[in-house]
């Protein structure tokens, strides 16, 4: 299944220097955003970066399509409805959400993977500024 062309390897969201957290006078803020390299921002530097970012989405797609073929359209419809309802139960972006209903539906409350051990969001080293994070989520930043 190696029919990926270059376009599908691109990152979904390209951070553009100059937007986002501003330096003074609207210039690109190297201290906060770091050095910019167009190549780094377009094509991921690690072969697993994209596949890990989209892993859950791809799994769901695969499972839903199999389910649709076997049981008909009602099965993925019902499951997707429940998943959508469960995804909406969360706190504001800067607070940790437990995703309890979502985990129960997915079955991930009974499995441990690398995303439970590594980079625990409860022990994150960086903190977001609450207003900025909410604005970013609502798209009005």
């Amino acid at each position, binding site marked *: 299944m190696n029919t990926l062309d270059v376009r599908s390897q691109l990152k979904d969201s390209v951070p553009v220097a100059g937007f986002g*957290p501003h330096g003074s006078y609207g210039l690109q803020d190297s201290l906060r955003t770091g050095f910019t390299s167009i190549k*780094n921002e377009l094509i991921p530097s690690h072969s*697993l970066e994209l596949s890990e970012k989209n892993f859950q989405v791809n799994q769901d797609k695969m499972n839903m399509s199999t389910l649709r073929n076997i049981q008909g359209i009602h099965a993925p419809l019902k499951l997707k409805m429940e998943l959508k309802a469960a995804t909406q139960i969360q706190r504001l972006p800067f607070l*940790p959400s437990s995703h309890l209903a979502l985990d129960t539906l997915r079955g991930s409350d009974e499995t441990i*993977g690398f*995303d439970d*051990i590594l*980079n625990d969001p409860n022990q994150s080293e960086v*903190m*977001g500024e609450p207003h900025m994070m909410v604005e970013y989520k609502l798209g009005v930043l």
Partner: protein
Amino acid sequence: MALSSVLQSPAPGFNFDNAARNAALGRNDGGHTPKPLKTGTTIAGVVFKDGVVLGADTRATSSEVVADKACAKIHYISPNIYCCGAGTAADTEKTTDLLSSNLTIFSLNSGRNPRVVMAANILQDMLYRYRGQIGANLILGGVDCTGNHLYKVGPYGSVDKTAYLSMGSGDLAALGILEDGFKPDLEMEQAKDLVRAAIQAGIMSDLGSGNNIDICVITRDGVDYIRPYQESEFTDDRTIKYKYRPGTTRVLTEKVVPLKLEVVHESVKKMVTG
């Protein structure tokens, strides 16, 4: 992490922020990246009449240096399943730990001992997901209600199920011994000796394997983890001890400065329990 403040909470799991920097550093340095601790190893397993025997050497190398002479390569997965790991030491450790945790949750939920095929499937899914970046070559062996099983799982998620297996850098030497000496339905002592001879061949023929031999015998009645089963004849006899007794270094002067702390505020809050 280039930003000091973020717009989204960092996603849990692997963090690829430094991948570009590492690639650039590797290029600048002429390709000299730090080498991970590998278990260039010989591991082997044999299915016998009453169960499974797993064997491993105990040397862990970090490029040309022996980093650990008594490394434990046979990992516990569940009371009836053990796993030998070759490849990158940290990867085998963490992968087998995760597998063990997942199977423990399963047995707590269902009240049963997990089956070896379940462990093999979980490993396969996990390793395939990471496309071989997790360098874990594992030999899974165990006894469950369906019989005695031995599985081999490669770093890309390939699974092989046979009655005798060997992996690691010394696998060809060990496989020669296993091919020659294996018969179906061996007795326990014969099986232990066959695995010992296979690991010995790996130790003799491969630089990445050495030191002692560990053996783990899994039967329906229980597990016998013999560590070490055979010790290496070449132990180093250091003539001088490097442990200095207290008082070796003479104390010239001593000055004690008490740190003055004063209680600024004290409050007692009763905890409501029950």
